[in-house]
């Protein structure tokens, strides 16, 4: 085999490797947009976050606008504090917006549902680092059943 042919084949090999990488980066992976500089942070406190995890999506009307960046316990209030990376493409949510922990399907992954509030004069928009005040915790099946039984008992 002559040198020229070897060079061509090696060139092809390297190109194929790069093509594979581009395919994986562009078609297979989300290009990690939210974890890079082009996002801002919002926080929210919940009584109970259920099965929410870091990297769970944050959705508005089903559209993913961000991801959970960090979950910690606020030791003053003993509430769960969730920090989210929201893409800068989606900003100026009103401060009356509410956020709740939802479940995709009956047994699916949990995610954050952000519901924008009313836009009115005098109502500020959420700035990077702000807390969303209106939160609804995760539904915990055991608690739900307990409440149900309790209310049943109350009626009798």
């Amino acid at each position, binding site marked *: 085999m002559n*040198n020229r042919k*070897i*060079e061509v*084949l*090696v060139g*092809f*090999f*390297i190109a*194929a*490797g*790069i*093509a*594979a*990488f581009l*395919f*994986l*980066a562009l*078609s*297979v*992976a*989300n*290009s*990690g947009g939210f*974890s890079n500089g082009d996002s801002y942070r919002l926080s929210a406190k919940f009584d109970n976050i259920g099965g929410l995890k870091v*990297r769970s*999506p944050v959705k508005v009307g089903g559209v*993913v606008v961000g991801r959970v960046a960090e979950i910690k316990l606020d030791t003053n209030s003993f509430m769960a504090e969730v920090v989210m990376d929201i893409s800068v493409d989606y900003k100026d949510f009103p401060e009356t917006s509410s956020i709740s922990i939802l479940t995709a*399907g009956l*047994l*699916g992954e949990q995610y954050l549902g952000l519901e924008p509030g009313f836009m009115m004069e005098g109502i500020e928009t959420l700035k990077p680092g702000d807390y969303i005040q209106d939160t609804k915790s995760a539904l915990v099946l055991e608690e739900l059943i307990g409440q149900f039984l309790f209310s049943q008992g109350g009626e009798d």
Partner: protein
Amino acid sequence: MLLDWFAGIGRNGINATMTLGRAGIMLFNALWSLPNIRKNTPLLIKQLFVVGVQSLAIIIVSGLFIGMVLGLQGYTILVGYGAENSLGPMVALSLLRELGPVVTALLFAGRAGSALTAEIGLMKATEQLSSMELMAVDPLRRVIAPRFWAGVLSMPLLALMFSAVGILGGHLVGVEWLGVDSGSYWSVMQAAVDLKDDVMNGFIKSVAFAFVVTWIAIFRGYDCIPTSEGISKATTQTVVHASLAVLGLDFVLTALMFGE
């Protein structure tokens, strides 16, 4: 009795340490000088051909089949939970994080690693390395270094191709044959796969494996007993040691990267 046992451990420990030392010195001597671009590039290209291009077929075929098997197995398991839409991330994540780097490294050890060991061992046995040394050409730089770099460069590329082909194989079985929705295969996959955490970490793994496997293969050849028996033993050792090293290292890297 007991003393013998300790002596055995001690002997093996000393031997292992000395072998590691020799391997380290070999690699250092082969790589520490600045390469001469004009002379070394053609050598590197030649070795990229031998080590990389010639491993392409086995990598592509294995990647395709593993992806197809993942598609099939994943589908049968996921469909029981009504979660067949998660087939995409299942296939992609298994390939990118584990199977791509690991299986590529194992195949590479068997295909290219053993060939490297045998080739270098035979060059040693037929005094080709000695005679090169006497022509004032350092075999470590002329023979060992280009083979090492070729291995380190080509294996990560092969692992990327393996994963890419595997994902397409999973698509073939899951979407084309079993009827998972094509849109959800890709979009759920995209939502779950992260460039940095999954693609890049897998890539880093394969670079680490490439380093270890090529190093073992080259050292086993360079250090072999220069007889036909010695070469065959060295070749076996390359495959065994490289595979074990890859699996062990994989656990460590996985724990570091994905464990919390």
